[in-house]
């Protein structure tokens, strides 16, 4: 039923007019008072009252004062129903998922919902990290976080914009807040800012708890703290937290794994309904980007098993390239190579030169020599794996009993190490390596009869070499200007799968051009064979002097970077634009293939050993491509790309993680205590969904009206106002006449 009222409004007056009129009225009033100074107080008071009233009325009319007549309609108060849509609502800890029990609660209270809808403006929202109006039938449980305070803040901000005062808030949630209320302990108080927010809302917050702690038992690994990168062969520490809920104090093994390989394990004791931080330490043995997993075994009766592990991605890089340089005899090739290695600040060089062979006789006591023992057992035994690159330069293993360690060196290469053999009369076949374990990891097959050839050779670039980054010396024509080599080792053959970058111009080995520089991928490692001891001539003899220095430095550094699998140096680079993707986020992969302009690349993706994506990607004219993939399911992924280079395929890979609901996944414990606190702070009700009813909620009953129509009438246009002024003026005139005033 409509209600009528009116209000005074000032329609068209301005500041200067108000000042002028008030000043004029004041002057008139003052003059009137002056004129009545000698009269009796009673008469003076009456006349001043009448004059003042008249002046006020006239001023109000001249100022544009008007009466606004309004027709008002009663308005319904608002009630906000907030439904938790975070991922923790998908947890099944009571026979069905929390989301389902929330929906059941609404179904069971359908008549109350109808009643509330009829009596109030009932607005339904879902909330996780933000508030969204929703139809309850479409409620999901996929939010990345639960932020009750953010939801209530949005509601408070929204309330000021909407018609109808907020009379009540109904919050249905598991209370597993991951936002500002995360740190509120059961016995603690709500933060001051939250109390302020609740008072701003100005209405009771009624809470209904979904999920019960007594029915929940879970272990969760989470809060992994790791650096984005670490240095290979340097100990790395990763911190994580093991949480226990609904379980007695328990001691469990936690394991750090990479590609199914256990890297570190320790036993962690977690108190009942508590958490324990722990650190795992491991030493990465390879460079690249890897997915690591911290896991603990599931216990019987656990509500959620999927949060018993946590994955993270870490890029393993090199601090310094640790190089072991073993030289069979001092010479110019070793001298100039050493210069490059020593000058490179990224190289930690350990050198051993054979300055005296077993047949040499210095003719003095050991004390007069600067020679030190050749620590072969240490170098090729315990210390071998601490080196990134092992260089044998014109070194024959026989006289020094290194042969015993050749199988170990071969294993080191297969396991991810790098080996570079440089030629000379003590190297390759002439060094006695034919038929040894080391030959099996070389890019070339060796002749058992010795292979040292003293003749001038000007090596030629092969088709593979022309496009290979190792020989990208910044000067395409340099290979034609380089001085010839003085000698070379003639290999018996080229190992299948090896790449020959430089070759003899006409001599052949096993049907192919005799290799001068060949590279090979061996297991997880790489090997290189430079079948000459004359590369120093490129450094020292190249016309132009300092240009030769740069060319040689670049060649050596390129080769070392290739050997150690410098990620930026691979002929094919595959990079994920992010190491971690949020749930639902598109995955973007970038491909760059050196020297494969316009080619096609194969791309595949695996998770948990299962191929989930396989496609062909067209590279552009720069050999690059950007691949955008639709959102992937949560998990750790390994992407692999391959491009055909001639007869061989080159592969590259990268790893990334698509996060599950992150913190929702690791902290799904129901918090009815938190919901109870919110209700208590606002005078609202609290109940579990299984027991509570919407009938019992607390509501602030307010009457609110909406203006349906209004009309405004200036005082100047109202006849009885004008009549009142005239009558008052007449009375004042009559009194003044009667009391003898002019």
């Amino acid at each position, binding site marked *: 039923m409509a209600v009528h009222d009116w209000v005074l409004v000032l329609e068209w007056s301005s500041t200067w007019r108000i000042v002028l009129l008030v000043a004029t009225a004041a002057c008139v009033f003052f003059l009137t008072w002056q004129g009545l100074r000698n009269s009796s107080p009673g008469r003076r008071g009456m006349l001043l009252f009448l004059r003042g009233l008249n002046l006020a009325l006239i001023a109000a009319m001249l100022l544009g004062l008007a009466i606004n007549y309004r027709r008002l309609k009663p308005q319904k108060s608002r009630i906000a129903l907030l439904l938790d849509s975070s991922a923790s609502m998908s947890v099944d800890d009571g026979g069905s998922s929390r989301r389902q029990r929330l929906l059941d609660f609404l179904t069971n209270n359908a008549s109350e919902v109808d009643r509330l809808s009829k009596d109030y403006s009932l607005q339904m929202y879902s909330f996780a990290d933000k508030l969204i109006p929703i139809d309850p039938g479409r409620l999901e449980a996929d939010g990345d976080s639960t932020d009750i305070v953010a939801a209530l803040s949005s509601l408070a901000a929204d309330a000021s914009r909407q018609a109808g005062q907020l009379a009540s808030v109904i919050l249905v949630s598991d209370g597993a807040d991951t936002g500002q209320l995360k740190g509120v302990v059961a016995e603690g108080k709500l933060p001051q800012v939250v109390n302020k927010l609740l008072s701003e809302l100005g209405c009771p917050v009624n809470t209904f708890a979904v999920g019960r702690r007594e029915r929940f038992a879970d272990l969760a690994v989470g809060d992994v703290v790791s650096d984005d990168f670490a240095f290979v062969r340097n100990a790395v520490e990763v911190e994580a937290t093991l949480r226990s809920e609904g379980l007695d104090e328990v001691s469990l093994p936690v394991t750090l794994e990479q590609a199914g390989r256990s890297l570190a394990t320790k036993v962690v004791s977690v108190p009942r309904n508590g958490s324990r931080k722990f650190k795992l330490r491991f030493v990465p043995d390879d460079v690249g980007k890897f997915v690591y997993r911290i896991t603990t075994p599931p216990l019987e009766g656990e509500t959620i098993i999927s949060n018993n592990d946590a994955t993270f991605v870490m890029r393993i890089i090199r601090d310094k390239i640790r190089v072991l340089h073993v030289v069979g*005899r001092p010479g110019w090739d070793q001298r100039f190579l*050493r210069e490059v290695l020593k000058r490179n600040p990224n190289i930690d060089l350990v050198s051993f030169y054979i300055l*005296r*062979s077993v047949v040499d006789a210095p003719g003095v006591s050991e004390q007069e020599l*600067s020679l030190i023992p050749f620590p072969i057992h240490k170098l090729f035994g315990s210390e071998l794996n601490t080196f990134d690159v092992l260089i044998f330069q014109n070194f024959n293993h026989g006289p020094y009993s290194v042969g015993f360690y050749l199988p170990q060196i071969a294993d080191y290469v297969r396991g991810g190490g790098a080996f570079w053999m440089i030629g000379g009369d003590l190297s390759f076949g002439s060094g006695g390596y034919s038929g040894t374990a080391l030959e099996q990891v070389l890019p070339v097959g060796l002749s058992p009869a010795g292979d040292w050839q003293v003749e001038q050779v000007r090596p030629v670039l092969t088709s593979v070499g022309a496009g290979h980054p190792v020989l990208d010396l910044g000067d395409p024509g340099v290979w034609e200007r380089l001085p010839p080599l003085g000698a070379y080792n003639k290999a018996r053959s080229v190992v299948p799968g090896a790449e020959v970058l430089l070759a003899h111009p006409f001599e052949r080995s096993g049907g192919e051009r005799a290799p001068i520089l060949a590279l090979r991928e061996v297991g997880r490692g790489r090997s290189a064979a430079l079948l000459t001891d004359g590369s120093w001539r490129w450094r*020292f*003899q190249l016309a132009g002097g300092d240009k030769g220095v740069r060319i040689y430095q670049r060649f050596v550094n390129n080769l070392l970077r290739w050997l150690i699998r410098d990620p930026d140096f691979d002929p094919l680079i595959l990079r994920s634009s992010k190491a971690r993707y949020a749930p639902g986020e598109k995955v973007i992969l970038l491909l760059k293939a050196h020297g494969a302009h316009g080619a096609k690349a194969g791309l595949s993706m695996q998770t948990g050993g299962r191929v989930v994506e396989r496609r062909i990607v067209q590279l552009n004219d720069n050999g690059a491509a950007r691949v955008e993939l639709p959102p992937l399911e949560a998990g750790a992924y390994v992407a692999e790309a391959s491009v055909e280079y001639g007869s061989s395929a080159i592969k590259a890979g990268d790893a990334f993680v698509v996060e599950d609901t992150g913190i929702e996944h690791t902290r799904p414990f129901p918090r009815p205590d938190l919901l109870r606190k919110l209700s208590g702070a606002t005078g609202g009700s609290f109940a579990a969904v299984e027991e509570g009813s919407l009938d019992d909620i607390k509501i602030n009953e307010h009457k609110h009206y909406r203006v349906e129509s209004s009309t405004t009438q200036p005082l100047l246009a109202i006849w009885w106002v004008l009549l009142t002024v005239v009558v008052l003026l007449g009375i004042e005139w009559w009194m003044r006449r009667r009391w003898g005033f002019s």
Partner: protein
Amino acid sequence: MRFTAIYCLVLVSLLAWGTAVADGIPDERLVIGRLPCAGGENPSAHGIRQLVWELTKRTSVEAEPETVAVDPADPDLSRTPFLLWSCEGAVAELDQQALSNLRRFLVMGGFLWVDDPSAAPGGAFDRSIRFTVARLFPGKNLEQVPAGHVIFKTFFLISRPTGRVATAGLEGLSVDQRLAIVYSHGDLLGALAKDLYGNWEKVCEPGGEVQREESYRMAIDIVFYALCLDYKNDRVHLQFILKRRRL
């Protein structure tokens, strides 16, 4: 006539072989280039031959016993990164092209060993070599090599530099923290020289045969320095060397 023809044939063959070696010097062997003297003589030939003999016998280094005459103005100077300059009198005067070429050789990593056969400070050789070094590197001078320098421990542990004349020191000129020129002004190669009958050509004064052995060691260390640079300053060697120095 017939004998002359055969002689010529042998000579041509030898020359051809020599050229082949110079063009395609096996890289595992050290070849010493010899810079010219004003008088055209080669006083160090016997000393070098004996040095190479001892070098091969005592160490793993392989070297050519004969030096190769090189022209400092020749762009191919870099075929022999190890140069020797030793003259009875003054060294050959170098024109600007030769100076420039030799300077580049040394800056780029080449090594020059200067040995004064006269062992006479202020003598013709000494004056000429200092003059030439001053032209090669204006503003730089030959300086005494400090006793702790790595050149004195590259193979043998040497406590004092010596030569045929014991009072002699060792000077050097550094380029880019590396000794590019080493000057032994005590006739180091003279101490090593033997005649064709195996007799020492010169007497070492005043230390005699002990001083001669020390001269061998110094010469070998110079060669090792050219080939290994500061290898013996590597961390792994320091502990051993310090221990042996103390003994």
